[in-house]
């Protein structure tokens, strides 16, 4: 089970015939994900390794009843690809692409939110964007809509995982696996300054998921997403949450790879994040392996 995706999810890949799109389409298929079609404008009507290719998302969605789109379109066209999927009414859109201009993302995120609100007001199921610059999401043993290594997400577990960093998500999943716990759904929300879905958006889904017992939040310096998450946890969550914050020793003002990881003034500092989680009674691991210990403790309470 898990959240957002399961074995019934029908996935189309925007940019399937590109290098990244192709290799990850194969890997998703190997994982067991129902990848039903690809979209590459201009190549509609062709076949790619057994998958039909369409010129538009709307067409692929209609022909296959697809409900998820994953995007591997290069940065210059990525936000446009998101908007195409959103206007086609795709309920879940996962943008993997790294390096999308921030102004494009601001506009795309705003438009997706407006469409989402309209859809819901009209009784529809809404539209959710995850990413960009994210590894995607995976519900163990059911479906992977992303680029994470298949092996560590093969066995179902009961710990939900949300992270701003790709590699650290793998690290945490492996640690939880090795400790015999494993993850339910992992959501990589992405490291960019403007993203479609935040920690606070995902937490209620885990709170409502009968197959998740506890949630691990892997944050990093910069922004106030962790602070917002802490606020939500304090006000609305019954399930235990454990946190980790990456980059606690990074010097102020230096940008560490992710455009989002910059400390501006006193917003987004490790101190402010630690204080927020502290106030919400969320234990924060000092090191990654400590995450496992804290989850164990939280579950035994």
């Amino acid at each position, binding site marked *: 089970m898990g959240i957002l995706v399961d074995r019934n999810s029908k996935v189309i890949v925007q940019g399937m015939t590109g290098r990244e799109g192709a290799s990850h389409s194969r890997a998703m298929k190997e994982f067991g994900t129902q990848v039903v079609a690809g979209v590459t404008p201009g190549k509609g009507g062709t076949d790619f390794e057994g998958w039909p290719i369409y010129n538009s998302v709307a067409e692929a969605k209609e022909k296959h009843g697809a409900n998820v789109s994953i995007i591997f379109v290069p940065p210059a066209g990525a936000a446009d690809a998101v908007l195409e999927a959103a206007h086609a009414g795709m309920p879940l859109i996962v943008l993997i692409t790294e390096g999308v201009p921030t102004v494009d993302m601001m506009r795309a995120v705003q438009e997706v939110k407006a469409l989402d609100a309209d859809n819901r007001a009209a009784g529809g199921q809404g539209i959710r964007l995850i990413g960009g610059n994210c590894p995607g999401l995976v519900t163990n043993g059911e479906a992977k809509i992303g680029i994470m290594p298949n092996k560590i997400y093969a066995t179902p577990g009961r710990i939900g995982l949300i992270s701003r960093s790709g590699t*650290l998500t793998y690290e945490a999943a492996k640690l939880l696996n090795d400790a015999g716990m494993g993850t339910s759904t992992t959501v990589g929300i992405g490291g960019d300054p403007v993203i479609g879905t935040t920690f606070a958006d995902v937490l209620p889904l885990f709170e409502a998921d009968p197959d998740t017992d506890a949630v691990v939040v892997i944050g990093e310096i910069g922004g106030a997403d962790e602070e917002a998450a802490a606020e939500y946890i304090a006000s609305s969550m019954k399930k235990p949450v454990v946190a980790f914050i990456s980059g606690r020793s990074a010097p102020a003002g230096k940008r560490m790879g992710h455009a989002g990881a910059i400390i501006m003034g006193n917003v987004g500092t490790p101190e402010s994040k630690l204080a927020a989680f502290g106030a919400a009674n969320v234990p924060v691991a000092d090191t990654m392996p400590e995450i496992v210990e804290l989850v164990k403790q939280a579950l035994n309470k």
Partner: protein
Amino acid sequence: MKLHEYQGKEILRQFGVNVQEGKVARTPDEVRQIAREYGQPVVVKAQVHVGGRGKAGGVKFSPTEDKAFENGEKILGMDIKGLTVNKVLVTKAVDIDAGTEYYVGMIVDRNVQSYTLMASAEGGMEIEEVAEATPDKIIKHRVDPVTGLRPYEAREVAIKAGFKGNLNKIADMMVKMSEAALKRDAVLVEINPLFVGPDGNPLALDTKFEIDDNAMYRHKDLADWRELEAEHPLEIEASKYGFAYVKLDNGNVGVLGNGAGIVMTSLDVVNRAGAKPANFLDIGGGAKAEVVYNAVKLVSKDTDVKAIFINIFGGITRADEVAKGVIQALKEGILTKPVRMRIAGTAEDEAKALLAEVNSPLIQMYPTMFEAADEAAKEANAAEAK
């Protein structure tokens, strides 16, 4: 990409902002020439990509032509926080006391998934200091990325911030600044001070402008403005390889990993181990041996680095490729400092076998990132103590 003050001013001017006039000089004689042209007094301002140049002596009021020449001599060639001043901006001086200095800026704000406009009557100061000491003196307003800033919103913000003068003209300047930000993909744009003279009209005396690197492909006309000599030499080399690299001060352990998150955590782990990271280097995903070789080569060139900590969690990245890259650097004599690494994931056993074959004390692999970091810290601190 960070722009120099004169470049930021040029962009604002193109969008119709009333900007303090100025010209760039590369020699003291040119400074004198401009001072003569403008009439005195003038201000000579270092053009370097660091904050606090005023405090460092990089901005000098020059009441006479001779004084301007002299200040040009002093500032050109000066070292400010490790960067050499190659250019100065010479502007007409403004009688600050006759008017008021304000602050306006726009910044990408992830919390509102848009730009936030900031305005404060505390102009002329570093806005970070104002934000810390008196946060209520900064008025913030979300700018819609589709419509941009509307004049009525700008007036509201100016009024709330306590701006005095010709409000329509001040608001117009803010609107034009926001157009510049949106059209030129600014990560940050500031006008500080925004000077309002006795006539009530606004004038941009100084500006900061930084463009989203992800959007540089659509600002090819500005590509010439990128000055490699104004950046750290190792950062220039890193950008050739496509690495995300940041040189860190006072470090002794070179750090590299695959992904921004894991590298940030690696910095934390090195700190915990009692050493200081000398750099942040993200080799990205799926790196082949050659990429790792280049990364090792780059970090080895940093004379501050006494040991190297490599932290890889391979999904797409193969551990044996990482090992091959490190071994190649060793064989070519590039690697002279101890490498302590943790490589987990895909092809881990193959990596171990390759390293066993080479059997060099310089390269050691450990099962966890902590052990590898501890050993790297130990080596680096010992080398430094010598």
